């Protein structure tokens, strides 16, 4: 084939780099598009060559991981108290969002929520006692992610909190999440006043039994199907859960009516769900968690299986590096704020809810959610562009979750840390914003691009793991 075939084609140029070079093409009758190129993230040179050398093994592992992730089938199968179902859960253990962190380094909202949880558990009677107890070392702290759980914002889970039980029907693994408390002064944003505790008790004593019975009467609820429908109805199931909540409501309402003997409780339960557009978030998150957890522990894989923030650190985990965390500083989101609040009030990014982005939802599916595009710059085009950008770092396109506007293209799913490093594009997350002081609550909502450091570290960390696998293989043939 001759290189001269271009002589007989109209010239269509992709200009990568100096933008000035586009002018001669457009002035002289050619078509040109500009790539606003950015350098790849800097990583260790040895790591780069290890990853390049093992490209085939990584590709094969990633293909396997994506098959597992995409074939996951999360279903809601019941409810119980955390202590009864969450592996390793006990009275003196508090679970929190994000990677591991000590009490000393915890941010305001996380501390506030822990204070609230200790009061709720009856381990302290007031805030100052609770704070002392938390700092005393008598209470253990661990990430939700270490216990098959996820929690939005502070993500605090304590022993007597009721939790949803989600099963991955394909692989048999489980994930857990507490009930969403609604907006206003709530524990997950670090509020711990009397009304917060009171609401938690009502949820435990009234809402939980009603829901538990209703779910039991239905047997199970297919969450994957609800999420897929919600995407068609304008949710991305992270920052907008209005459709998901409505679909869940439609499913659960008849069951509540038929199994609940106390009409007043039934009405209250139904009104609670109806009044909280984010109710479904606490189902979309564990649904994502249980799909991704099934893909853990696949050597060589560079796919992210968890992306989580504790309000201080932003951490990720890879399928190929077991339970290792790769962390960097959590950033403050670009946000729109509620009246009376500014960026100065905002806490750095917090919560396990980025598990939705990890599964190709949330910010990755923002093109499906025109109602909230103003968070991302005001126009539908911006939202579409963000989703298109995420295809650049995704290993696959989802087989079930689709974007109507993109002709029902599957959402970008499975973050490949190699692609993040190569393109310099980090995952895009849309999220709620907590006040940095405990007890104040949500102050806005916005978006952010994940910090680069966890991905650089994960790239290097995976290379190290691969080298140690090889060394082991040489020592033990």
């Amino acid at each position, binding site marked *: 084939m001759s290189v001269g075939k271009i*002589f007989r084609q109209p010239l269509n140029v992709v200009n990568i780099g100096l933008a000035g070079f586009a*002018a001669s093409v457009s002035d002289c009758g050619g078509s040109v598009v500009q*790539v606003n190129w950015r350098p790849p993230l800097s990583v260790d040179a040895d790591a780069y060559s290890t990853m390049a050398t093992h490209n085939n093994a990584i590709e094969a592992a990633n293909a396997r991981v994506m098959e597992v992730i995409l074939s996951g089938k999360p279903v809601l199968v019941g409810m119980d108290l955390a202590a009864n179902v969450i592996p390793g859960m006990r009275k003196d253990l508090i679970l929190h969002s994000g990677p591991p962190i000590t009490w000393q380094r915890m941010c305001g909202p996380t501390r506030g929520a822990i204070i609230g949880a200790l009061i709720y558990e009856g381990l302290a009677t007031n805030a100052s006692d609770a704070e002392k107890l938390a700092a005393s070392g008598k209470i253990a702290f661990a990430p939700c992610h270490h216990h098959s759980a996820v929690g939005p914002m502070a993500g605090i889970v304590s022993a007597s909190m009721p939790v949803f039980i989600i099963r991955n029907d394909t692989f048999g693994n489980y994930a857990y999440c507490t009930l969403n408390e609604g907006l206003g002064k709530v524990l997950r944003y670090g509020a711990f006043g009397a009304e917060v505790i009171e609401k938690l008790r009502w949820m435990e004593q009234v809402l939980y039994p009603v829901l538990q019975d209703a779910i039991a009467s239905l047997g199970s609820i297919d969450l994957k199907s609800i999420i897929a429908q919600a995407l068609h109805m304008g949710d991305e199931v992270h920052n907008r859960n209005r459709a998901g909540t409505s679909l869940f409501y439609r499913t659960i309402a008849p069951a509540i009516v038929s199994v609940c003997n106390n009409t007043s409780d039934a009405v209250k339960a139904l009104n609670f769900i109806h009044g909280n557009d984010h109710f479904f978030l606490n189902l979309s998150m564990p649904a994502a968690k249980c799909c991704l957890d099934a893909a853990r522990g696949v050597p060589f894989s560079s796919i992210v299986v968890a992306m989580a923030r504790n309000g201080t650190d932003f951490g990720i985990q890879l399928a190929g590096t077991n339970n290792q965390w790769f962390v960097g500083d959590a950033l403050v989101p670009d946000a729109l704020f509620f009246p009376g609040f500014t960026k100065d009030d905002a806490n750095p990014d917090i919560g396990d809810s980025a598990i939705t982005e990890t599964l190709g939802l949330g910010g990755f599916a923002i093109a499906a959610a025109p109602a909230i595009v103003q968070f991302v710059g005001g126009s539908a085009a911006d939202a579409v562009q963000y989703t298109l950008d995420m295809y650049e770092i995704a290993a696959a396109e989802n087989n079930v979750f689709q974007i109507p506007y993109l002709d029902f293209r599957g959402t970008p799913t499975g973050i490949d840390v190699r692609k993040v490093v190569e393109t310099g594009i980090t995952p895009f997350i849309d999220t709620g914003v907590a006040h940095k002081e405990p007890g104040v609550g949500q102050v806005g909502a916005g978006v952010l691009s994940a910090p680069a450091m966890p991905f650089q570290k994960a790239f290097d960390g995976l290379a190290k793991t691969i080298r140690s696998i090889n060394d082991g293989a040489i020592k033990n043939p």
Partner: protein
Amino acid sequence: MIVKGFVKKGAYHDSVTLMLVTKEVNQSSGVENSGVVMASENNKELLRDAGLFLKEFESLTETDLIVSVCAKDEDDATKAIQLAEAILKGVKSSALRENVGFKSLSQAVSALPGANLAVISVAGRYAAFEAFKALENNLHVMLFSDNVSVEDEIRLKTMALEKGLLVMGPDCGTAIINGIPLAFANVVQRGSIGIVAASGTGLQEVSSIISNLGGGISQAIGTGGRDIKKEVGGLMFLEAIQALEQDPDTSIIVLISKPPSSDILEKIAHTVQNSTKPIVAILIGGKPQVIEDSGAYAATNLEEAAHIALALHSGENVAQRLSKLQERNLALIEKAKELALGAKGWYIRGLYSGGTLCDEAQLIAKDLLGSVYSNTPLNPKFLLKNANQSFEHTIVDLGDDEFTKGKPHPMIDFSLRNQRILSEASDKEVAVLLFDVVLGYGSHPDPIGQLQPAITEARKQNPHLLMICSVCGTNGDPQNKQEVVRRLTELGVEVQPSNAAASFLAFHVVLNLNSTLNR
């Protein structure tokens, strides 16, 4: 401080829009704080906490709109509320906007159906990676970036040839494909003369001269200077000749490069022998017998190459055309004698932005003055000890790497050349300044605006200084050659139609100075 409220019942707006409005209102003059919200219980609570709650909000429900402003005075508050209303009136669904910019090659390719060429100018160490991606996407590549390893260059070109794709570069500054100038290139007429060049300004000079004299260019393919070195083996240079050989719109082929390694020279000669089209070769720094034996027209400089190609194009006798050029040169010799009369000093200093033009000037000097000093000398013995310091007859390439590390090229940034013009002018032994002005895309949009202060100052310092230059470019270029020549002439600069002519004139002036011993 006062708090003022505005209520609109049944006017629903989504919370995100309202947060945006709040943000705007907060920036209005005299506003301390504000809340633009639907009157849900939750939002009313927020207003209470923020000190923005008024009694009149009590009975409202979530379908009612509240605008509450805390401002310095009544007037500021009223203005802020009006602003909120105006913004809310203006809120409408925004249609999808134009392309908001691509972040990667693959995005761009999916947005541009029929994409067939990538122009890559990213930092060298990333450039090969982008070029491989372009080839994988079946794009031809123009690799402007330098600092790409020779191994990567070979891999890229090998892969490209397997796929039937061009890789122009690395370090390819110019090309014209399908009439469209790329990177540093001139707007030339289209025609039937095809060019293959391993030399950037060589391509610009030849294509511009051809176009200015009524000819036209079918394609001008750059290969990057290293292509014709032994390691790369002329992979693209040879392939490009083949492509032009097969191109029905090309009837004459011009080859431009520095002398290639001997085995590549053999291969080129072989390709030329088998060609059915007339081929003109200008190998700057040599006129090897093997090329002449192959049947190509071997030119001694870029201008001559252009004239031979034009003669072949118009069916004119080549020897006749060259003798006309010879006559022109005789006239230049006479002109040189005149110019020498008014000159003082005896040295020439050449200050070039085009590397190939600098080489060509040295080549012409060699016949007339012998070797001259340079930072890129033809004869290594004449390497300047210090590139910033001229010695006797000196011709420097200010676009060479040692001058451009971390700085823009002198075709874009004139500061280095302007400094040098002034320092040469202050040297009483200097009689002639010779330089180039390269036009076209990529180069500075107003070169004379850049040069004028230095030229004026140099003239003031040294009224006898002769300034001779050529302008490489066309009237179609954004800078317009005619206009540039006019302004240079106004500044008292002697402008010649080619670098060869300017060099020839300048060196003959020097010959006359030496013969009259005007020390």
